[in-house]
């Protein structure tokens, strides 16, 4: 249990290496859902298809999510300087932006649902909801993690010299963002362009 990084074989903290390893697995998780979605792009069974996406709206919420990566970096940076107050501020900003994104997703799901895109409408609908829903779940877990980071840094469980904890959650958060870049492009943008053609 020596967590002193100097004693690890690769010179990386166990927890950080563990997070990297886990994220490697996550890529395949989303990869499989994305392939299913691509297979079912046109399989709408008479229900709504990709034309119901509201690109400007989702672009804005995507932008908010991407910006949260910036505040996450700033939070980690503050933590490496031992500045827990500023770290907490940026953590709050990150979690807030994540919450805005989630709110956008809930709103969007509501709109689609009222326009007739239910989970059981078509394979397209199921794969869309499950793929983006799983991403939303990951954002939600990320917000929980950030919240815990915030609270535990107040109680003293996370100390000024333990920036690896912020870094680890940062890795997860950046992953969730990067996956959204892929999902937004593949799920929303490319099919829309294909429809316009």
């Amino acid at each position, binding site marked *: 249990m020596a967590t002193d990084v100097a004693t*690890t074989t690769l010179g990386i903290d*166990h927890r950080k290496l563990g997070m990297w390893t886990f994220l490697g697995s996550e890529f395949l998780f989303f990869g499989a859902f994305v392939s299913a979605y691509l297979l079912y792009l046109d399989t709408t069974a008479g229900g709504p298809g990709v034309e119901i996406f509201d690109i400007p709206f989702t672009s804005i919420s995507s932008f908010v999510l991407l910006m949260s990566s910036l505040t996450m970096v700033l939070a980690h940076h503050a933590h490496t300087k031992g500045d827990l107050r500023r770290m907490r501020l940026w953590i709050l900003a990150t979690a807030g932006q994540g919450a805005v994104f989630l709110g956008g997703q809930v709103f969007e799901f509501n709109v689609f649902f009222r326009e007739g895109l239910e989970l059981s409408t078509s*394979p397209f609908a199921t794969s869309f909801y*499950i793929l983006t829903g799983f991403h939303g779940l990951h954002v939600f877990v990320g917000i929980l993690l950030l919240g*815990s980071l915030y609270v535990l840094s107040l109680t003293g469980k996370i100390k000024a010299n333990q920036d690896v904890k912020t870094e680890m959650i940062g890795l997860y958060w950046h992953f969730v963002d990067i996956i959204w870049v892929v999902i937004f492009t593949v799920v929303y943008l490319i099919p829309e362009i294909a429809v316009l053609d």
Partner: protein
Amino acid sequence: MSSTTEQTGYAGRPRQRDGFVGWITTTDHKKIGVMYFITVLVFFALGGIESGFIRWQLAQAEQNVLTEEIYNQFFTMHGITMVFLVVMPLSAAFFNYLIPLMIGARDVAFPRLNAFSYWVYLFGGIFLYSSFALGGAPNGSWVGYAPLSTDAVSNMAFYAVGLNILGVSSLAAAVNFIVTILNMRAPGMTFMRMPVFVWMALVTNFLLLFALPIIAVALFMLNVDAVFGGQFFEPATGGDPILYQHLFWLFGHPEVYIMILPAMGIISEILPVNSRKPLFGYAAVVFAGAAIGFIGFGVWAHHMFTSAIGPVARSAFALSTMFIAVPTGIKIFNWVFTMWGGKLRFNTPMLFSIGFVSMFTIGGLSGVTHAIVPHNAQQHDTYYVVAHFHYVLFGGALFGLIAGIYFWFPKVTGKMMDEKLGKWHFWTWLAGFNLTFGPMHMSGLLGQPRRTAVLPGELGSTVELYNLLSSLGFVVLFGSALVFLYNLIDSTRNGEASGDDPWDARTLEWITPSPTPFENFHVVPTITHRDEFWHRKYAEDEAGRAIPVPAGAAEDPDAGAEHDEHIHMPDPSYWPLVQTLGFFPFGYGLVYGNFLLIGLGLAWLVIGMYGWIIEPVAEGDDDEPDDAEQVAPTATAGAH
């Protein structure tokens, strides 16, 4: 922060290291390994009883010992049990016990996560078996093809959720073992000095890491379709059942190597020790293992040659399937050449290892025949396939794992298993195995279909004879298993004392006393050679012959070393056990579509996670104590 004052209160940590509480709160990799092993024995008995009923039903044509529904449940549960509850966790038992010892570490990287993996495995198994009492066990075979498995007549929701729970266990273990192997090696333990078993464990866990998310997706899709009205595999709205097959086998084929590579690693340790020679072509064995890991992801569609995947895909996958036989063949030659010219000792572990090489070769050869598309189409869903995969998984994986049990039993208990009973076990096991599965090649070629509850009488008396032989083989295997069980229990109590190094072994785990002390190594050894322990015991004379090192280097490797180092071992914890109980409400909620239960389960898991995070540590702060002026953050920054 000094946390000794926090010891009392709701989040206090258990301090007991033995007794019942000591077992259920343990974070010691050795105890967890033993717990995996004992649980595997129970599930192995269950899976064996299921197969006994299958063989009873098929002993004669047109028999109805079981109803068709029960038969379907039994063969499905037999498959799931043997794959997910026996072979994989038995490998995990070896990973747990041996990886830290072989790389010179005192525990795994995340000891509580390790306990978590075990409890999730146990509860996942109980969850799956609880289906028998809750309206019927899964009955759509271990592959669970949609849309049959999403149909209301199937109980496959338990399959989808149960296997996903077990997947959580394996994924957590995979992350844990990968980090342990990459990051916790003793000084001097470079990659090419690692024992082959550790190498194979590394490859296996990477396979798990990349294959499990894919099956998780497939199973979750099944779950959504079966319970929540999803349309992934519903042909009526355009869903494509072939997608399920692709996802399943994209996991399913690496899974085959997940099951066989640990056994390959085990016999790569046993053969050199009992041939009194180093492993022939260490680098070739290692790279062949890694190559299998890569190519293993590129052959999955040979399970689907009779599905609509088109001639181009069939040709490509036929080629890649033939190609993957190459690294496997390399390994077989290396094992044979390890034995070639060695001073062989035919003890029980050695016999099982040789059994592995020969039986696995037969299974491998029948496997290559599946690469040929027309032949594959002919044999698809016949008993020929059943014969093939039992030769690789029973004759292969299980023989190797049993060899490992005999070989490392003295390490765990400090006692030898009885050799005479062991040899009885081996020969009856070998005979019973071949009697059971050998005839299936023939009955399959003669057209006997798999997964059919009643053996059709029109297949003729020859097929009936082969089936009777298979059923007799089961009786032999059953008797043999009892011999093994007796030997195991009796040797634990009355076995001869083994001493620390009964086999004159080569690798690091034998450098410690047997049974292994709690902290594994009093002093972490510095590694200068592959087969480090051998080189500490023997030097070479001018002719290259091994001569024992005269000084007592072999006797007490720790002699003369200072013992002033304070050894910090992981504390026990209740939380892995408490947290994983949340998988029950969560799992039943997913099976019955009950959002209240799902919510309860999720809340339980999250609360358990908080308990885990905030529980105090017994001595000082585990991670980076406040008072010790930190070098860690700077070192971390430097490691980017």
